[in-house]
């Protein structure tokens, strides 16, 4: 019995060797997960929750961080890894708190949090790097480009790029390009390649790193981006060809070599090469990647280039090849529209109508099919045939209304509605156009399109309809719906002016 008691005590003593931070970490993980669940719940509500609830959640994250931070006087136990895990949790909580404050546009609080993090996590380079990155992004969003550049440069200096990996290493590689772009913006000299010299040197060094083929390929891709941005198309084409070769040898592939080839061909198109060399390029691309999703796009790009150079016959041949060999491609509607437009330009109207008809019947739910109605009306306008034009506009108007009824929640619904408004305006049915602008503005309430629609409606009411009271009513509605915005303030001023007798 005594030996059993001794054994029990020995077991308890052995068991009692656990680090108490184990419990703290567990509670921190639990609290963080619960806070994340509330974050997702608030983000997912149809109506935007009030700021007080968001601030409460941000405070909760900050409290989690405070509870998770290991005591300053507790010696860390490097063997257990708990210390670092607790700091990771605290950092994550503080990041989210800062994110919420940034969304609430409370830059003072955001700065405070990041200062706190810079001090508290100075000994953890990864977290310090993430803090720098966030501060850089926030500074950039605020328009403080110099501060953003400073933060990004510190990251590039202190961290080795590790593309595709989570954490700060995965975010390093694009930063030299971003720094170059910001410098060019500061200098108001987007085309000045001297701002990109440092980035080019950085990427050239990495692009030849045989020890890390993935890193080399990503660096090559960024070199191609620089060349494209600066309009150095010959260099871009060369670099993209090299990228294609690198990607073909990479396992697993991180990018599509077909896309690199397509981008190279597009770059050469910008070089204004001869028609024959352009066709040869596209033919090689389509032969090497016949089943690639970009092959029909390449043919369409060639057709557009040929058409832009006045080579309509060549363009039509290429379009026919595309329509023949890639019947199910998503670019077929665009190809049919391009073909119809080319035929119309060539005076081959009957054939153009055939192409428009094929487009409308075969691909009714496409942007190209929506546009073709107005194209037809434009043709009659150029011919001076008013009757046919009005008929075409009436058909277009019916087609757009029909589309809106059939497809109220389609990705093209907004464009169809825009086309309807344009058609009604062309038909001089300004009252209906204003009604549709207001209805559309309600549909897109909260988006950046809403203010423009309301402005256009007010302007049309005042100028086209001569209905000042209606214009005022629309402006009052605008001021109510967008109270603390520039457009809301502008509306209030415009109401005063209209009442004084001017037009907006």
């Amino acid at each position, binding site marked *: 019995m005594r030996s059993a008691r001794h054994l029990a005590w020995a077991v308890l003593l052995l068991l009692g060797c656990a680090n108490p931070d184990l419990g703290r970490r*567990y509670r921190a*993980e639990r609290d963080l997960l619960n806070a994340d669940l509330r974050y997702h719940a608030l983000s997912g509500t149809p109506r935007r929750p009030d700021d007080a609830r968001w601030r409460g959640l941000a405070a909760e994250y900050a409290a989690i961080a405070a509870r998770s931070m290991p005591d300053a006087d507790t010696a860390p136990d490097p063997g257990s890894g708990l210390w670092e895990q607790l700091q990771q949790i605290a950092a994550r909580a503080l990041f989210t708190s800062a994110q919420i404050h940034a969304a609430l546009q409370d830059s003072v609080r955001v700065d405070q949090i990041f200062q706190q993090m810079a001090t508290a996590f100075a000994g953890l380079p990864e977290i310090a790097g993430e803090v720098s990155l966030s501060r850089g992004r926030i500074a950039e969003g605020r328009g403080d480009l110099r501060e953003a550049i400073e933060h990004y440069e510190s990251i590039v200096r202190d961290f080795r790029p590790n593309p595709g990996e989570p954490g700060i290493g995965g975010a390093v590689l694009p930063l030299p390009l971003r720094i170059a772009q910001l410098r060019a913006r500061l200098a108001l000299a987007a085309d000045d390649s001297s701002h990109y010299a440092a980035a080019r040197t950085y990427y050239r060094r990495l692009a030849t790193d045989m020890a890390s083929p993935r890193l080399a390929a990503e660096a090559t891709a960024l070199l191609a981006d620089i060349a494209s941005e600066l309009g150095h198309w010959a260099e871009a084409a060369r670099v993209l060809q090299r990228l294609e070769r690198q990607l073909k040898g990479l396992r697993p592939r991180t990018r599509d070599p077909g896309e690199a080839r397509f981008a190279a061909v597009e770059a050469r198109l910008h070089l204004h090469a001869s028609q024959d060399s352009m066709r040869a390029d596209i033919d090689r691309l389509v032969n090497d990647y016949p089943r690639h999703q970009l092959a029909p796009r390449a043919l369409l790009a060639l057709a557009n280039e040929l058409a832009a150079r006045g080579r309509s016959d060549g363009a039509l041949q290429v379009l026919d090849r595309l329509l023949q060999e890639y019947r199910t491609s998503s670019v077929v509607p665009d190809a049919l529209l391009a073909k119809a437009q080319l035929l119309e330009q060539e005076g081959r109207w009957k054939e153009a109508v055939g192409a428009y008809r094929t487009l409308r019947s075969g691909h009714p739910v496409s942007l190209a099919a929506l546009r073709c109605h107005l194209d037809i009306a434009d043709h009659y306008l150029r011919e001076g045939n008013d009757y046919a034009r009005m008929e075409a506009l009436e058909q277009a108007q019916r087609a757009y209304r029909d589309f809106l009824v059939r497809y109220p929640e389609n990705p093209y619904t907004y464009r169809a509605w825009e086309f309807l408004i344009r058609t009604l305006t062309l038909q001089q049915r300004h009252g209906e156009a204003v009604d549709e602008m207001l209805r559309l503005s309600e549909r897109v309430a909260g988006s950046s399109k809403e203010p423009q629609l309301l402005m256009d409606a007010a302007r049309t009411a005042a100028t086209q309809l001569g209905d000042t009271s209606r214009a005022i009513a629309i402006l009052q509605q605008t001021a109510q719906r967008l109270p603390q915005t520039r457009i809301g303030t502008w509306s209030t001023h415009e109401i005063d002016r209209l009442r004084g007798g001017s037009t907006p």
Partner: protein
Amino acid sequence: MDWFRPLGIAGLAWRSVATVADRRSLWTPALIVAASQLLVLLVLLFFHLPGLVRVAGPLVQLLGGESATHYPAHIEALPGMLDRACLALEVLLAWVALGATTLRFAGAYGVSQDEGEWAGARHDAVALAAIVALGVAARLGLSAVLAASPVGSKLGTWAGLAGRMCAGLLVQTALAYAAAFLLLRGASIRDAVAGSLRLARRNLATTLILVAVPAALVLPSLIAAQLLRPFAATHPGLVAGVLAMRVGLGALATVLLVGSATRLFLSKSRMRR
């Protein structure tokens, strides 16, 4: 196979249990085991509390691995940890309850302690503990064979659960009467196991029914614990509640099984007052 007669016999055994079920002394051993299991559950659930983590933390690591010390993996691992802890409790403690319940049921059915060959209590305790340990080992071994499945597959999880249940049923059927042989007839370990196997074989269907029905009482809570795993993070209380319910149902199942097996043993061995 004719199931009506065995069902009838099993029904009579359960009726006997129901007749004496109001005696508190019959429930006490099983309730003590259930209380210890609940205590273990609480310790595992709240291991992270400042006063408890030093002792309970290593226990959680032992039973569930390092991942079980993280949230919400801890809640997902809770059913498995409780199973392992209860296995240990079974070997350390449950044999006492088994012996006490068997004797108390025998007394309730009118068997005098002066009858039969009673060996010394110490001998019974060691032998009974050995039989329970044997049963646990057999269950574990059989589970490993029956429950083998691809790691991580959803079907594998359910197959594993079914395998463990089948293993438990088989071993309990084989050893259903071992405690009674040991304590009421004073048999040795070998004779008790052999006797139990013989009696179970002769009354296979009845024994299967006597074992399966109490197991079926616990089955819904086992299934619920599995189904609730994806909700461990959002409803940890629900998982813990289902496990607590399982412990309670387990006590009920134990009393039902021991009472009915003892009744059948007595009727077959004709030990009456």
